[in-house]
């Protein structure tokens, strides 16, 4: 638990990219509010995402209350249930996970991990956050407008999304689409920063193959997001045109209340193509940073180098590329040509190969490692198990013949919650426990952390495992009340009530986590600069928390890859990336 002293090497070779003049804040406002420092922006992103995420958590409670005890709560009717579903899904996928992984972790970790002083375009980076905040405010405002938020489902399929039978048809859908457009504009500003910083501002010696996998994950996910979000942008703009100007991009000829509507000839399937051209890469936009972060957590807390680093990098790139040609597997029931179905099923199953490589490599990293069951490690292990579970049901749903009967059942809900709900959240939580000491200089409380992990992990399984069973029985999703039917056995109701109670408990356990975050900030054990004895650059900063400009007088110089743990013959069981080989020889290590 010692602070690793930062010493400039005697003979620092010149940097490839000359140092740029750093922006210095002049007042309290520009230091903490309109800050251009990536670390402050990261915290702003994280707090905003967490705040809106908590709203989505409460919405999931509402949905569970209704599903578990239908008819008991008078304040939840069918329309509201649909609104809760929509907002829960949209917030969790886009405004929480995407913003947190890329805006939060990306901003904090990229400059520190690549050895830069800040992002390359700090002003644009600041704008990115404020546009994101505006998007969140517009989204949250839909709770208070006449008609409430949209209840179109998070996929916002037309024609129902903008028809009068759907709740939130007046303001809800307009504000939702506007908020998405704002989010995409804000994200593009941030994304440019993340990509160019990795490409251009790496410190001397930091080759691509020496990057920690966290950076690889965030970097690739950002490139994907930059290319995929325009699809959602186009879809949102076109739907806004349909809703506000009466165009018929997506709207077919319709009769509403006996009246012929002004729409005609549009194609709802066109929207689905655009939406899922964004929507499927989005899964990996959330998953790839998680993959990267979990690799680093496992390696650090098992004191072992990551198994198959090259394969891990190649797999990240391969997954990123493949994820752009699988989108129509979300549309098997849209009446597509069987040949297309076959094509997309094949690409979907192919993507399992690089993903499986990653899982094997994580397991092999753990194999005979010196596993420390710290809280970050527990969450990382929880992620691997959950991701394998969710991935396997993904293989089911990737096949057309299996997907068709399971489509629109609770099985799908269970699948995507495991694979892109619970699994990435495990990584988010593990990463917070891992990097909190760097951000605040204090450790999070261990006991509260372990309690938080076990309740969250076991609870998530108690909620989502039975949900697969409900789906196999044929219980449909998006129904606010399933009512009486031959296939609805009494066990369905019992399980629903059980899952709802567990969901309440898991939600409450997050309060312990939030308390831990606040309590440890003031009372936590001081962590020192490198409490996990990790190799990557962010742990080698001269100050903890890192100061403005990150690195003191001189940028660090990198001499090795990010995973020199338990190197035979070395004095310590880790060698920081910026430790020159000569110094290692002085310690009596064999080269």
């Amino acid at each position, binding site marked *: 638990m010692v602070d690793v002293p930062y010493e400039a090497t005697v003979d620092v070779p010149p940097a490839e990219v000359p140092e740029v003049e750093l922006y210095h804040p002049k007042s309290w406002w520009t230091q903490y509010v309109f800050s251009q420092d990536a670390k402050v922006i990261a915290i702003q992103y994280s707090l905003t995402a967490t705040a809106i995420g908590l709203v989505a958590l409460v919405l999931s409670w509402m949905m569970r209350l209704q599903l578990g005890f239908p008819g008991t709560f008078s304040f939840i009717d069918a329309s509201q249930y649909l609104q809760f579903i929509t907002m829960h899904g949209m917030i969790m996928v886009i405004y929480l996970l995407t913003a947190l992984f890329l805006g939060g972790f990306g901003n904090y970790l990229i400059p520190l991990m690549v050895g830069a002083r800040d992002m390359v375009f700090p002003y644009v980076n600041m704008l990115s956050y404020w546009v994101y905040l505006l998007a969140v405010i517009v989204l949250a405002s839909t709770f208070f407008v006449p008609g409430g938020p949209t209840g179109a489902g998070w996929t916002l399929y037309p024609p129902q999304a903008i028809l009068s039978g759907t709740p939130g048809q007046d303001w809800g859908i307009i504000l939702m689409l506007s908020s998405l457009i704002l989010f995409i504009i804000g994200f593009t500003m941030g994304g440019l920063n993340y990509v160019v910083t990795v490409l251009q501002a790496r410190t001397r010696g930091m080759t691509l193959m020496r990057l920690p996998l966290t950076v690889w994950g965030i970097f690739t996910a950002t490139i994907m997001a*930059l290319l995929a979000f325009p699809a959602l942008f186009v879809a949102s703009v076109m739907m806004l*045109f349909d809703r506000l*100007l009466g165009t018929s991009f997506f709207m077919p000829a319709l009769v509403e209340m006996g009246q012929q509507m002004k729409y005609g000839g549009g*194609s709802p399937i066109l929207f689905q193509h655009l939406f899922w051209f964004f929507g499927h890469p989005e899964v990996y936009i959330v998953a790839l940073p998680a993959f990267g972060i979990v690799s680093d957590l496992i390696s650090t807390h098992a004191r072992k180098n990551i198994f198959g680093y090259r394969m891990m990098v190649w797999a990240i790139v391969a997954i990123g590329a493949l994820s752009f040609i699988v989108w129509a597997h979300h549309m098997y029931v849209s009446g597509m040509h069987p040949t297309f179905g076959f094509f997309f099923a094949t690409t979907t199953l192919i993507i399992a190969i690089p993903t499986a490589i990653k899982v094997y490599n994580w397991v092999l990293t753990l194999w005979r490692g010196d596993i420390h069951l710290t809280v970050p490690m527990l969450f990382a292990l929880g992620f691997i198990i959950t991701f394998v579970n969710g991935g396997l049901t993904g293989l089911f749903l990737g096949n057309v013949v299996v997907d068709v009967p399971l489509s629109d059942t609770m099985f799908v809900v269970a699948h995507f919650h495991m694979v892109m709900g619970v699994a990435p959240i495990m990584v988010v939580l593990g990463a917070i426990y891992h990097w909190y000491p760097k951000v605040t200089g204090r450790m999070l409380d261990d006991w509260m952390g372990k309690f938080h992990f076990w309740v969250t992990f076991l609870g998530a399984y108690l909620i989502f495992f039975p949900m697969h069973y409900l789906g196999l029985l044929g219980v449909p999703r998006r129904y606010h009340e399933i009512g009486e039917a031959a296939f609805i056995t009494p066990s369905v109701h019992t399980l629903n009530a059980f899952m709802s109670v567990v969901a309440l408990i898991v939600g409450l356990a997050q309060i312990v986590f939030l308390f831990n975050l606040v309590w440890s900030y003031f009372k936590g054990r001081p962590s020192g600069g490198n409490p996990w004895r990790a190799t990557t650059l962010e742990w080698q900063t001269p100050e903890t928390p890192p100061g403005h400009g990150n690195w003191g007088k001189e940028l660090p110089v*990198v001499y090795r890859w990010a995973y*020199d743990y338990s190197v035979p013959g070395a004095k310590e069981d880790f060698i920081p990336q910026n430790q020159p080989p000569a110094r290692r020889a002085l310690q009596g290590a064999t080269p």
Partner: protein
Amino acid sequence: MSAIVLFMAVIAVIVGWWLSQQRLTAKPWLEEGSIDDFPGTGAMTVPAAKLGLGVFLAVATSLFALFISAYSMRMDMVDWRALPVPALLWFNTGVLVLSSVAMQWAYVSVQRNNMDGVIVGICAGGASAIIFLIGQLLAWRQLSAAGYFVASNPANSFFYMITAVHGLHLMGGLAALGRTTAKVWRGAEMPQLRLSVELCVIYWHFLLLVWLVVLGLLTGWTDDFVNICRRLLS
């Protein structure tokens, strides 16, 4: 979706080519030591702003490719009625070409340290871009006066929407050009100016290219070409 898939394939080739230069087959666990032993693997030396513009152009191309994809899918529906091409669009196109030429003039001047040329170039470029935008507005008015409203046919809807998006991008470019002009106004030195002008010029040429493609599609002049491509793909 063939336009966007094609664009993604191009991106994949570029990324693949770039990655192949990055020693992705290296065994980093065996390669400790100074970077001098591994030349060409450090950070890119291109200025950050230029790299950022390159990435942004990829994003913008993705956006327009998606509009084009949506356009070509919607076009196949039975209710599609192509709209007449206002003659004004020819004039506008000419003005936009002039704008790009003027910007290129500024670029050449900045390379030759000719400040007068830079000023003439960016002023003419900016002014003709503004004339282009006004011309587009007039074209909209002509169309709606002739009864081709935004909602009356999907062909019209796409015309208004895509020209609006292109116009907005050009307005963003004008904002950047305005900042460059302000730099000239304040008497910035040539080296400081060089990058700003170069970035504006790249962006101008990009928007001209996008406009030519969009114009070809919206007016149906490239229909034959698109049909040939489709037949090749299917």
